[in-house]
């Protein structure tokens, strides 16, 4: 535990003594702040326009129109920024030779992985922590958002961000080149986003697909061709898709388990990669 914290603390220190943390946080706040401002302006315009019509006015909801799109935007910005946050973590240790220090100290590779992950998570927490000011800013106005769904949304982006960090860390362990780590992580993130679009168009059922792949044997064996579609499968792998329920203010255990397993599996694989790289 002590080792993990020492490594995490060093990581945080490095982030905040280099321009990286400030650039990443700055870009993130700029973009998410703009989206927040823009949706707030649009919301108030609509409020003004429909002020005379009580029916429409009652349909306007600050959570739906301001808070929810913010989380979606944050998710997209994370996809773009997280590779930059994680690329250095392990790749740089290897390139600079400091891996030789870490792995000749009485520290296990699991502690190293966890320390690195926590370090990056701290930067991430600062990043989304600052955005808490957005809902708080409008708290005392007429457009006060409902806090419970807002917090659920925060919980969602937190889980999603941590999943991306864990995945990014895995790519950082696989190479000693930061750019390679960043690009491969970025590509993976984009893919996990894009399959969300494919999901809606892939209407073939998994049973039918298996049946075709096995030249009909599947069907003959009575395994059935009905059931979930390929789109359902892809959709459930989409890293953005699982954010949707949180955005609505719903905490679904399926989404929590999804993000939790992405984090766990990625960290576990990272530790395995570190161990196996010693043997080469």
């Amino acid at each position, binding site marked *: 535990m002590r080792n993990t914290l020492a490594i995490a603390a*060093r990581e945080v*220190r*490095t982030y905040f003594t280099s321009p990286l943390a400030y650039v990443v946080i700055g870009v993130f706040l700029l973009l998410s702040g703009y989206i927040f401002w823009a949706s707030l302006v649009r919301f108030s315009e609509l409020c003004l326009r429909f002020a005379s019509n009580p029916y429409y006015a009652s349909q306007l909801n600050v959570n739906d129109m301001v808070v929810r799109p913010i989380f979606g935007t944050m998710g997209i910005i994370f996809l773009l920024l997280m590779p930059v946050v994680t690329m250095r973590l392990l790749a740089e240790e290897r390139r600079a030779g*400091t891996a*030789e220090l870490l*792995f*000749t*100290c009485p*520290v296990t590779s699991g502690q190293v992985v966890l320390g690195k992950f926590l370090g990056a998570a701290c930067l991430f927490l600062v990043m989304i922590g600052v955005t808490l000011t957005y809902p708080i800013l409008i708290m005392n106005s007429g457009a006060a958002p409902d806090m419970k769904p807002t917090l659920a949304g925060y919980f969602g982006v937190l889980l999603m961000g941590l999943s991306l960090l864990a995945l990014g860390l895995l790519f950082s362990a696989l190479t000693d080149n930061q750019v390679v780590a960043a690009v491969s992580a970025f590509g993976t993130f984009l893919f996990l986003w894009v399959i969300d679009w494919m999901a809606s168009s892939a209407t073939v059922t998994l049973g039918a697909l298996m049946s075709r792949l096995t030249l009909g044997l599947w069907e003959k064996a009575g395994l059935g061709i009905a059931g979930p579609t390929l789109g359902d499968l892809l959709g459930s792998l989409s890293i953005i898709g699982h954010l949707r329920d949180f955005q609505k203010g719903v905490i679904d255990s399926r989404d929590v388990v999804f993000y939790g397993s992405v984090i766990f599996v990625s960290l576990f694989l990272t530790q395995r990669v570190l161990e196996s790289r*010693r043997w080469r």
Partner: protein
Amino acid sequence: MLEVSDITKVYGTRTVVDRVSFSVPKGEILGFLGPNGAGKTTTMRIITGYVPPSSGTVKVAGFDVQEQPLEVKRRLGYLPEHPPLYSEMLVRPYLEFVARIRGVPRRQIRARVDRAIERCGLQAVAGRLVAVLSKGYQQRVGLAQAILHEPDLLILDEPTVGLDPTQIREIRSLIKSFSGEHTVILSTHILAEVTMTCHRVMIINEGRIAATDTLEGLTARGGGGRVLVRFARRADGAEAALHALPGVASVQAHEAQDGGFAVGMRPGQDAREEIAALAVGRGWGLLEMRPLTRSLEEIFIDIIRGESSGVADPAAGAAAGGNAEATA
């Protein structure tokens, strides 16, 4: 303290370390000597547990490096070939970080770091960024990092690279101060370093131990009681006449010195007086007579060459015997 038995490391088809075995008692300073690419660094990495051996075992204080790595690493200080520095950190926080992950108790961290800074002469740069330090200072920070937790076993891979002569002297005396309490293994390709700091020398070449000896033993190989004599006039019968002297074992024309002979004595005998008398009596005009000691450098090269070609250089003479038994 350290027990290395039969370690081999193979990368693909290349055998980098080939059945190396040795042991180092507590308090000894052992020098690894060898040309570049001889397998010094790999051997050290295997001892530290950074690289697992393809076969063989390493035990530090009775703990197997592969079975109980944490116990071993707790007792280990290691300065790799390139000092493992985080260039974006300041010197003191860097050392504090290392102290923390080396398992120094929280309350002692400050004192240990202070002590390491003092011992390595880093007071002036303690508040500077690692990245802006000169190579020599970076090397010293690397050394401070290796010694700050007072390890039982200190492994230094070329510790004096990049230092200026004064610093080298300081570092050498620092390393020497570790003998007795701590066990030190250092690698180098500078022979003078070995002469000044180590109790025992291990010469490694092409992944194998070419020779292990104390410094005295190595120097003795070069001594062998040979003298160079040089005459003013070329005397034709000189070689035979010298050979006939009691106490003379061999006579060779010395290739570098015109009219010079390398005369080998029988063990325990000294024929210098007789040689002088003979030369004066025959009127050869004795110009010079001096002992032919071979420098450590030459012995080293002979051993390396003998190892790689399998044939001892004829000029190696006295070293050849010792060489053969060391390789066996």
